[in-house]
């Protein structure tokens, strides 16, 4: 029997949910509001009504070209995601449909690499990048982001592929499909929602990645995360400009996230419901 929920409780729950959502969203909202304030308004105290100036945006754009880090972010996040998918799809495929005794161990080992604090390998990574000439290059950052997100991508795809019944693939084999046809006509169409949500989630993860991007890039390859960081400069903190830079940095991913909500929700709860 369905559990009965009184109207009153529904109201309480709805209000609570909106309140929590508002608290979570508030920093982003306040960043956007602050970006429309003057610097003196920004340090004056908490106020939700800005003067509406666009000065910060012009200032940010004139001081540092927004377009360059934006393109860096796009190239690095999309590039690293596509490379990760290229590696992860066959890996997840073989682990889901042709597992061996060691498959679980391999999966756990991959996940374990995410448990180590990144700063633990900062020095060797930096030296490797310096010696191979990858410092401050898009290629270098793409490689790093591919590698750090690969375990999550493989895990996500693995759980999606596991949900595809093996009998359907066997049926395709019985129906005369070659491995290629089996992948193109049967598996991929069935896995598309999973691949799409993995792609979207990974682009967001790569877009927001700051630790390695800031440390391994300077003028040339710096993505938007480094762009924001550059506004907390030795000259002091300019809250309004920093907010304008932040707003510009998160806007593209916020818009993408808005349009792909459905896939993302599934991506974020992956493995939770079988």
């Amino acid at each position, binding site marked *: 029997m369905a559990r009965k929920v009184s109207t009153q409780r529904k109201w309480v729950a709805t209000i609570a949910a909106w309140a929590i959502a508002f608290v979570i969203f508030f920093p982003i909202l306040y960043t956007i509001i602050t970006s429309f304030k003057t610097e003196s308004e920004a340090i004056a105290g908490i106020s939700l009504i800005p003067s509406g100036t666009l000065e910060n945006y012009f200032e940010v754009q004139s001081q540092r070209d927004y377009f360059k880090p934006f393109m860096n972010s796009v190239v690095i996040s999309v590039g690293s995601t596509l490379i990760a998918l290229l590696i992860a799809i066959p890996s997840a495929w073989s682990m889901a449909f042709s597992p061996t005794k060691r498959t679980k161990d391999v999966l756990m080992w991959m996940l374990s690499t995410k448990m180590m604090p990144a700063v633990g390998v900062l020095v060797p990574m930096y030296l490797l990048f310096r010696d191979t000439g990858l410092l401050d290059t898009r290629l270098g950052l793409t490689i790093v982001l591919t590698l750090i997100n690969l375990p999550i991508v493989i895990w996500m795809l693995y759980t999606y592929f596991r949900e595809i019944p093996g009998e359907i693939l066997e*049926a395709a084999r019985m129906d*005369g499909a070659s491995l290629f046809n089996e992948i193109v006509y049967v598996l991929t169409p069935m896995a598309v929602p999973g691949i799409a949500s993995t792609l979207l989630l990974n682009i967001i993860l790569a877009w927001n990645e700051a630790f390695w991007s800031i440390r391994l890039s300077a003028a040339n390859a710096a993505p938007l995360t480094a762009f924001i960081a550059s506004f907390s400069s030795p000259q002091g903190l300019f809250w309004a400009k920093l907010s304008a830079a932040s707003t510009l940095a998160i806007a593209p991913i916020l818009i993408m996230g808005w349009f792909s909500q459905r896939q993302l929700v599934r991506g974020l709860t992956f493995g939770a419901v079988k």
Partner: protein
Amino acid sequence: MGNIVLDKVSKSFGATTIIPQLDLEIENGEFVVFVGPSGCGKSTLLRLIAGLEDTSGGSIKIDGRDVTAEPPAKRKLAMVFQSYALYPHMTVRNNIAFPLKMAGQDKAAIDRKVSDAARVLNLTNYLDRRPGQLSGGQRQRVAIGRAIVRQPSAFLFDEPLSNLDAALRGTMRLEISELHYQLKTTMIYVTHDQVEAMTMADKIVVLNAGNIEQVGSPLELYRSPRNLFVAGFIGSPKMNFIEGAEAAKHGASTIGIRPEHIGISKTAGEWKGKVGVAEHLGADTFLHVHTDNLGTINVRASGEVGIHHGDTVYLTPDPSKLHRFGAEGMAL
């Protein structure tokens, strides 16, 4: 054509042997049922024939051609799975057309064969639906449709009716038998349901722990089971087994008598007992009789009998229908 020969076929998964070594010949056009309890290796055997599992030893020949090392697609077999295994993203039409498309047939031929199959299986009105919009029986028919358009050498059915409710199971059983009469193609059918085996098969292969216990027509198996396992497995309700002094009287270590071969009387007979549960089905009455020395004996009486729980009754087995088994469990 659809002659299938298994020669010393074996299958192991790591250290676990599923099928030790097995020989079997299936004639062209036969309806063969593999039957046995869960885990007896019947599905594995079907998958070996299909090519979905690799054999650990021995060879499989289809129409004289050794296919042991060939992939499933090249064996010219079609399979109907327990879960139907339809392609959920394709319409019924595309599901049925898929094997033809894979075989590279032209569109006109595909359309003609799909509509033929749809007509035979009463699916014409559902061709543009997806599997998710169909009932269990309709899905099963689509799976069969996908199999018949290929015109395979043989059909393989892996417990195809076990996901259906009892009424639908009966209807589909008839439909598959009817299809066999129409197509006259070899069919291999795996089931654990011995009623399906008895009603559909030309030949039943009884499997136990990866070994063939007996091969024969349904009535051969019913009349002359080769050992205790087959005797107990074939027939419903199960055969009664009696050991000890009563068996020794017949020069056997175990005797078996089917519930329908025991006479029941309220006045006189060979074995005395008290009726426990009496199941009145109308056409038949199943009586569970607790005897003094022989344990519980199940009796099947035809029609309605005026015997109820707690009555004292006398049972008389039909001596011509008595099965005798030696110490090793083999029929004497």
